[in-house]
């Protein structure tokens, strides 16, 4: 299990990487969304948002009404934000669950892919 602090550290790295990627900023133009993360093992909630092409800081708790809800283990979130885990693999195996529109799911996955693979 990863602690909330570990998730926050991992997210901070992901955020810096994403916000510093010009191509990614283009990809999220006009895509302002609230995303809730929920850990299944530690039963914690976090909120991140994308506003004006920037990822916000991570907030503890579910804040605001979400466009997208991601549910997974704390370890998976941590590994995902560090770029060590391919979220699509976990999603296809049912270990990470999503709720939200297909388009929003695509964009969120695009962030994780472009941030680390620059594909």
């Amino acid at each position, binding site marked *: *299990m*990863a*602690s*909330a*602090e*570990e998730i926050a550290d*991992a997210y901070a*790295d992901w955020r810096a990487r994403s916000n510093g990627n010009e*191509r990614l900023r*283009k*990809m*999220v133009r006009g*895509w302002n969304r*609230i995303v*809730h993360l*929920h850990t299944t*093992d*530690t039963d914690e*909630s976090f*909120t991140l948002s994308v506003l004006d092409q920037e990822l916000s800081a991570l907030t*503890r*708790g*579910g*804040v605001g*009404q*979400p*466009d*997208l*809800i991601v*549910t997974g283990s*704390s370890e998976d979130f*941590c*590994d995902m934000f*560090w*770029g*060590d885990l*391919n979220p*699509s*693999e976990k*999603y*296809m*195996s*049912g270990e990470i*669950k*999503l*709720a*939200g*529109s*297909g*388009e929003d*799911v*695509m*964009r969120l*996955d*695009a962030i994780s*892919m*472009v941030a680390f*693979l620059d*594909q």
Partner: protein
Amino acid sequence: MTDRRADTGGHAVGEQSVPATHHGGEELRRALGLRTVVSTSTGLAFAAVEYLAAAGLVVYVAGDSAWIAIGVAGLLALLAWGFFGELNAMFPTAAAIRLYMKRSMNDRSALTITFTYMTTIVLVIAADAFIVGTALTHAFSEPSWVAALWILGLLGAAVASNLRGVRIAGGLQDVATYLVLAATLVVGVAALAKSHHALRFPLSPLHGHSPASFIEAVALGVFLFSAFEWVTTSAEEVRHPAHIHRGMLIAIGALFVVTSLVATSMSHVLDHQQLKSAYPQLLLGRAAFGQAGLWLMAVVTAMTALNTFNGGFITASRFVYGTAREGSLPRQLAALNDRAVPWVPVVGLGALSLAVALVVALTHSWQVLVAVGAGLEAMIYAVAALCTLRLRRRAPEHPRPFRVRGIAVLGVAGLVIFSVLALVASLSVDGSFNPAPLIIIAVCAAISASYVLFVLPKVQAAEARRRAATGRRRPPRAVPVDPGTGDVPPAGA
């Protein structure tokens, strides 16, 4: 079949208490309601190819009794609805098909079947491009070769709008679908009323036909309902999970009413030559309202393509993207453009559909396309029956908010009936024995299986090498974490 979803109850998330829904107790800001689920399910099934399939079905049964074959097909669609309802309730995700197939058979078989099934999307898009192109060519009284330009233009526009990330909003999709259904109903009723003849054999489907012909009519009838289940890929965006199986049920009812009426009115007012044309719906429109009716049906045909192109391109390209991201297809297929659209699958799907549509336009073999689609759909319904049966044994404890009653009987019945229908549909074209559809399906399956057996291991090995070369970025833990709470113990503890 029964709906056994339990109330999830309220759930506090963070600082606020939010209404109970299926997403762990949270309400999404944008979620699909039942109306949009029904329009999506109906709209995906009611492609332009429906008109040709309905006209083709009439050949196999006596005159006006096509509705009986469609009714039997509708009952079979209800059986398929039960299987998809249960599987979707178990795995309410866009990746459901991968999950339930993987868990009920091995991953290689699951991938082979899924890739083969995806061929249906190419066929439906190609068929719709061909039908809309041909209908517009006829409506404008242009020479037949102009249809190729329409096809090119339609698919080009579909690819361009997809690459720009344009999606039809739920509201517009609702309006388009319900307008198509309403206009088709009005035209069907008006054509029947204006014929001034009583129905000839409304209750005798076998009059002058063999039981084998009736079975072929039912196999084609199943195709009229096909793709209603594609709405299950929207399971993550609905307001309530029950909307999916309820929406599919309503869609099957709506499809039965509209397609029965279309088939009956076509058989009543069109002659054999007209039924075999590539635009029987335009001729039905003309029979109902003269030239205005023909134009009305031309517009309606074009509107059906909105749903097909929108749903088909998104479903197929996102599936290919997801599978490439998962590592089961080359990673180049997951490349995104600046609008976060997987451009390689979109362009590839457009090119493939264009090639198929042009071949169909040149060879006038649209009934082969219909038979391939009917065979593939019946095949996937048989697979759904098999998965439902197997998962009952392999994962008896898995929550099933919706389950089929009497699965031991219905599951086996579905497996046998849909397998037979798949074979029947793929061995007959236009009332005669023709193995071309079966050969096409077999070639698609062989290509899929060859990829899974011979190419996939190399793709996976390349991905594993890439990951190994990258190394882990996550720093090692300096202090052990309390396994009970997940907390880092305070300093000095």
